[in-house]
């Protein structure tokens, strides 16, 4: 059975850090169109700090403490809205994974659900407002259905990626009603949401790295 231990998890976060660095300009370009133009730079700074912190961390078998460390690092270093949002997400995922040496499909789903709930709580947001939730919520639903159907973790995460891709495409068709983009009203139409895009990027890295 495929599982995710803390070592593999750290590798995934290193891969996310590289990916975000690679896509920094793209994310910032998306955010310049409908936001304050800092999403790529902020997230790259945050995950760079995450990778550095994880490399200094004493070996820890607890997946929960890895996730918590990631969350706290993001809150402290990102500087934009994605800091408290992703930070809360990983801290909540860490809280439900506390004491687990590895996450199986069910454990991963529990962590993912807690993360998405964390984003909803922190952002006081729901799907349909052109935010990262428009990628995360469909991804979470797909993950749940796939795992309930007996798929292994990697397959389930790929299905979540597909759902998140559709979610990102959907954000192009709606008007932003949360976040900085909401000040643009109808002018936010036609642009994909940077937060939903970074959520998709991260999910894809997880699927590829598993």
């Amino acid at each position, binding site marked *: 059975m495929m599982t995710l231990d803390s070592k593999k998890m750290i590798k995934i976060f290193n891969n996310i850090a590289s990916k975000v660095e690679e896509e920094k300009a793209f994310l910032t370009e998306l955010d310049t169109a409908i936001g*304050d133009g*800092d999403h790529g730079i*902020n997230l790259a700074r945050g995950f760079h700090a995450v990778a550095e912190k994880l490399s200094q961390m004493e070996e820890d078998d607890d997946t929960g403490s890895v996730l918590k460390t990631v969350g706290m690092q993001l*809150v*402290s270093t*990102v*500087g*934009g*809205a*994605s*800091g*408290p*949002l992703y*930070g*809360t997400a990983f801290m909540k995922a860490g809280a439900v994974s506390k004491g687990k040496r590895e996450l199986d499909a069910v454990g991963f789903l529990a962590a993912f659900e807690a993360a998405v709930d964390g984003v909803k709580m*922190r*952002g006081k947001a729901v799907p349909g407002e052109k935010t990262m939730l428009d990628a995360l919520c469909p991804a979470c639903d797909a993950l749940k259905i796939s795992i309930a159907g007996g798929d292994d973790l990697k397959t389930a995460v790929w299905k979540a990626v597909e759902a998140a891709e559709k979610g990102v495409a959907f954000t192009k068709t709606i008007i932003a009603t949360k*976040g*900085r983009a909401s000040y643009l009203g109808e002018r936010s139409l036609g642009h994909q949401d940077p937060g939903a895009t970074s959520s998709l990027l991260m999910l894809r890295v997880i699927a590829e790295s598993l």
Partner: protein
Amino acid sequence: MVGIVVVSHSQKLAEGVVEVSRMMASNARIVAAGGLDDGSTGTSFAKISRAIDAVYSEDGVAVLMDMGSAVMTTEMVIESMEDRRIRMFDCPLVEGAVVAALEAVMGSPLEVIEAKASEARLTKKIME
């Protein structure tokens, strides 16, 4: 005296709000927590934490924010200081800070200051 922290994405804006507030309340315990540590725009968990520490007393601290991550980051700082008396004010940043600084200097308690600062949103600048 209630302490006041002004949180903004911009260091200059936060410092400017403090400057304007001190025009009428020079003795107010009001500090700025704007921008990131290197001075660039954004909101910093560490800066907000330090600012609260700097003006904290048993009378409590009022935090006024501009928007978005300023609100969410402040929320997380307050969650990390569970046992303290800290309130986030939902009010216009400049007018709210001026009112809060005045009330604080006059010795009003945190709840009263919050009510007054919140009223600032209803004050019209141009009379019909």
